[in-house]
């Protein structure tokens, strides 16, 4: 069974986006409400994006046409590849899902909780099966980092009130910097 080459898929998406941006350029780029003279506004805000998008569409089209002419649009898949790819694909999708979720929850759950979830799950996905290692890395490293950033560098990281209050006694034990 054959499927599209990864670079063909990527280029096709770029081409599609470029064409859509060209077509809907009028809606996506606002024009100045009053006409500005050529000494203030030598070119419209649309000129450069239109040139670049046209260039993108042209180059992407050349790439796809060349691939088509060479007969390299598709790549043949081998038997047994499905099962092998399946496990890897599962890990990859899970990693993307966890990363996106943690990114969206960072300000809600706070730095330490989010990083614990993210680091522990990443460690497991990368293949670490030692519970002690996973837990110690996911707890100690973010906590140390949090203390360095907030206490030494005096910069804020998002954290929920409950954890911030719980950390106050620990931070008081540290020498002031």
């Amino acid at each position, binding site marked *: 069974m054959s499927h599209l080459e*990864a*670079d063909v*898929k*990527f*280029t096709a*998406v*770029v081409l599609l986006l470029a064409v859509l*941006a060209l077509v809907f350029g009028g809606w*996506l*780029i*606002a*024009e*100045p409400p009053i006409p*500005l003279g*050529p*000494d*203030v*506004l*030598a*070119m419209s*805000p649309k000129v*450069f*994006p239109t040139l*670049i998008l046209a*260039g*993108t569409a042209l*180059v*992407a089209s*050349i*790439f796809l046409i*060349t691939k088509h002419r*060479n*007969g390299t649009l598709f790549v043949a898949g081998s038997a047994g590849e499905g099962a092998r790819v399946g496990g*890897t694909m599962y*890990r*990859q999708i899970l*990693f*993307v899902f966890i*990363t996106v979720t*943690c*990114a969206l929850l*960072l*300000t809600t759950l706070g*730095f330490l909780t989010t*990083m614990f979830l*993210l*680091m*522990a799950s990443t*460690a497991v*996905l*990368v*293949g*670490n099966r030692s519970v002690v*290692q996973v837990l110690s*890395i996911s707890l100690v*490293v973010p906590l140390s*980092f949090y203390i360095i950033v907030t206490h030494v560098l005096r910069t*804020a*990281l*998002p954290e929920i009130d409950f954890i911030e209050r719980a950390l106050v006694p620990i931070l008081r034990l540290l020498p002031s910097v």
Partner: protein
Amino acid sequence: MIESLLAGVDVALRVDTFIWISGGLLLGMLMGALPGFTTSMGMSVLVPISFLVGDPLIGIPFLIGVYKGGIYGGSVPAILISMPGTGASIATVFDGHALTKKGKSRKALEMSLFASAISDFLSDIFTLVMIIPVAAIVLGFGPPEIAAVMFLSLVIIAVTATGPVIKGLIMLCLGVWVGFVGADPFSAMARYSFGTSELYDGFHLIPILIGLFALPEIFNAVKEGDMPGARVASFVGERLRLDELKNSLRTIFRSTLIGTGIGVIPGLGQPIAAMMGYIAAKNSSEHPETYGEGELDGVAGAEAANNAVNGPTMVPLLTLGIPGDAVTALLLGAFMMQGLRPGPTLLTSSGDIVFGILIAMVLANILFVAIGYLTIPFFARVVTIKKSLLIPVTIMLAFAGTYLARGNPFDIVTLIGFGLIGIAARQAKFDVAPMVMGFILGRELEYSFGQTLALAGDNWLRFALTERLGMTAVVLATPIIGVLLGRRMSHFRQRALAREAGQAA
């Protein structure tokens, strides 16, 4: 400018600067020594840390330390386990690992260290000497020249990217397009912002850098799963003798020249320099047949060339604001976060700081030798550390670094978005470096081009003809595109013809 240089000497000789450079060198060597950890990935997660320390004379030399340490550190796994830690160390594998097999890994590692430090020192001196005349010339540049130089640089970056030229051009265009998101530089009208205030300011450079360089590496580690720690055949053995180093000095100087020349040209970078340095060493040797079988000169040639690139990449970066490769794009981000805008006016506005940074860069080479020599046994063991212990720390640094850069939660979303683009690009074998360069230089190109049009007024043809330098750059760039595209097309055509002939047969 000479006053700035003298003021730079004064500000560079600070204890805290040296402490942070040492930290940077150690971290860089660690990242370089870890197989699968690239210098660009390491630097991308450390750029926000350089900003947090506040002072540019600490933050930027810290990153330069990471850069220098990373390029050298890449030679450690190349020599010990035949796996280059960074792309710059590919040529080091040929003779470095052969020396390890012979039980002479210590000798190879020390040769790599001394060759790297000597060439780095010499090329940094060259940078310091060159930057004043180049800056003096660039100071006379107006918008037409800047627009033309940006255009030429973008073309060179696209054609020298890893992989086919056309892929480099696609990524470059994509980067330039992403740079258009936000307010138009002339009318301040919103472009591609979809009515959101977050997008009106455009994308911030740091999440883009971390997303494109660090997240795909982490994703790749997830894809590969855990690998058992590498086994090192030997990291003991004889030390390098002084006469052996003396014998290789000619090779080191030759490779330094090669690397320095390559460093000044945007887009070429360390891997090309290392290969050229190695080939030059082999070709000029009296016994080229021994290369690949454990020749110390082979290690010296490759390592001196790749480290000599580091300093001269700062010349186009600081004088024109043009990053030569991914790592200097990260340095550009660090400069911008510190409120320093690399370009023609940087040396006049913040000359003391810039010279301070450059002098610290030169002096860092002394620390480089000391730290490198003392830590060779430690870094030799680092290559055996499992990835699963380090990848979680890297992803934490990626998230935290992005957030700390501006304290804006939207940057985390940007990080993920560009991370996904980087992952897709990597799967499709597209180099992300031209995209970053396009993002950085595209806006500058548009701005200077717009200014040029405003200056030209109605009579732009006469204006173009009188702006000789600008026209020269455009005239130079156009055939480069044409010739390279033509060559690529004829290559594809020949392959298609060959395939047809094969089918017919």
